């Protein structure tokens, strides 16, 4: 194999092995090793296979050379290549914030804020263009899904749009 290890790949391999063991333990809790047609048989087999494969991946990783020399460079490369603060981590933070405000603010307001935030963060154009783009997208989404397809969207309980004839 000529491929080199990606930054953090070795640690990820170990993490997946531990994750598999954790799942294996939980699969064992379902019905132990009682019978091959028990409820726990397939989860146990699948988790076992995961553990075996992740062990094999650890061995594969050890046979490969790392692209980085030393831990310091690996952390540096990890921050550059796998999890760069900008734009990935920043964007991820915006997404997580969006999911968290979905319940209290409802779909329309939170989506507008999310679109405004991410367009501004990623696209970096004028504030009015960003406002117009996010407003237009939310309106279009609402019309297509809520009005045309009658899809239920998360709604804020305190904000009763149906009273205004907009929701429901």
């Amino acid at each position, binding site marked *: 194999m000529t491929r080199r290890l990606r930054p953090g790949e070795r640690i990820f391999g170990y993490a997946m092995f531990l994750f598999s063991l954790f*799942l294996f333990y*939980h*699969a064992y809790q379902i019905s132990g090793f009682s019978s091959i047609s028990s409820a726990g048989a397939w989860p146990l087999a699948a988790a076992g296979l995961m553990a075996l*494969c992740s062990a094999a991946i650890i061995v594969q990783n050890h046979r490969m050379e790392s692209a980085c020399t030393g831990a310091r460079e690996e952390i540096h490369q990890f921050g550059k290549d796998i999890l*760069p603060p900008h734009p990935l981590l920043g964007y991820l933070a915006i997404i997580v914030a969006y999911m968290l405000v979905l319940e209290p603010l409802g779909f329309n307001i939170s*989506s507008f804020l999310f679109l405004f935030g991410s367009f501004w963060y990623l696209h970096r154009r004028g504030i009015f263009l960003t406002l117009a783009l996010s407003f237009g997208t939310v309106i279009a989404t609402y019309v297509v899904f809520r009005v045309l*397809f009658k899809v239920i969207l998360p709604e804020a309980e305190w904000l009763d749009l149906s009273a205004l004839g907009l929701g429901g």
Partner: protein
Amino acid sequence: MEASALSYFLMAWTDPYLIFLIAVGTFAGIYVGVIPGLSVTMAVSILISFTFSWDVNEALAMMAGVFLGGVYGGSRTAILLNIPGAPAAIAAGFDGYPLAKMGLAGMAIGVSTTVSFFGALFGIAVLAVAAPFISELALDVAPRDYLLLAALGLLLIGALSGESLAKGMFAGALGILIGMVGLDPITVEPRMTFGTTAMMGGIHYVTAMIGFFGVSEALVQVRNLDKRVIKQKVDKILPSWNVILKHLPLSLRCSFIGTIIGALPGTGGDIAALLAYGHAARSVKKPSKPFGKGAIEGIIAPESACNAAVGGAYIPMLTLGIPGDAVTAVLIGALYIHGLKPGPMLMIETPHLFWFTVGNLVLAAFFMLIFGLTGIRAFAKMVEMPPALLMPIIVILSVVGTYSIQNSLTDVYWMLAFGIFGYFLKRYGYQIGPIILGVILGPIMDINFRRAILSTRGDIGEFLLELVTHPISLILVITMILLLIAQTPAGQRFTARRRLKKEAANIE
């Protein structure tokens, strides 16, 4: 075809209003199918509620269009953005997305549309000619055969593993475990719920699909904000006849697979497409590009199969009253509301319904071809949109799609978690395909394995004996053993030697 059958068949063809309804249905189906999470089942269920006050013929005409259009539409986003619009389109993205990245999205969608049309016609033809025979065959399929079929599908992991088979198998097993979460369907024990009640309802596989494909792709793409957008060549939308003719045998074989899988109760276009992709990956010796890297065969196979599965799904519905998949289950409900009784008597009491439906489906297939080919240019532009604008919109669509499955915010959080996890998996060379394969096929294998064991009262010996004494099972077992042998180093040497001999003979 008798004269009366022909007149029933042409009923929709001669009524402008019915033609209009089929066109509207197909159009709506395509555009609902495009959106991840908005499934064909959902589109049919919503639209069918409008039709309860309609005439039954009008309702049936529209539903045929929605069904066919929706199954076809899902491949659009799979090819353009690597985010399948529906589970049936997952396999179309394996090679379609690499093609789009090369700037060949127009060609990929053109080919997909054309073979979808052929596949759909094939399925409808089988429905028209062999419906009673196929439905009898479908009734003979026992749990052990479903187990074997799903296992055949899982063999695909070998082709989808990417850089390491261990990573592919890890991903497949992870998918199976995700599929197991929730209450066990036989004993109602909670499985992999970590003691919480929130996880008892299980994780819907569309949630996993949207998370792993949609959000993780949005995260991967966001790292390439500065990268120049690939301009899509959409000058040639109609694929050349040579390409189509060359791959017609493959398309027909996969349409056959799709029709049979579609006719089996409980299995639909998603499994048909995956099995057909596996068939293509094994049977096509010299693909235009390696599979998974933009092989045109990798689009032809699943697209033929999943559209052929539509005709297949109608077979048990119209002849036996058993749904072939979730959409036909909704359709059966609608038939009851319209005062019809789907089942063996349907063809005797209302024979016109059968030929009328066949006629509708053929018409819908033509509309699918027309709308499919005319809409490509606008769609291919989607890839040219700056990722800084496209990626946030994908996140919004993912939220809408996930929430719409069962109106639960927990699903949305799951989707996000899968998206982040999927991002790391992708970055470290684990493929997403096997996970989804596991999520879809794992529960089928689990429940059918246990049903099969229960039917032999826990006797493993009898279970194994049944695998070789029943004709359908025996065929599947032999297929599987041959495929497994072909994947071993010795088997690969053997096929390579045989190919060399064949080529030598050709040269002589």
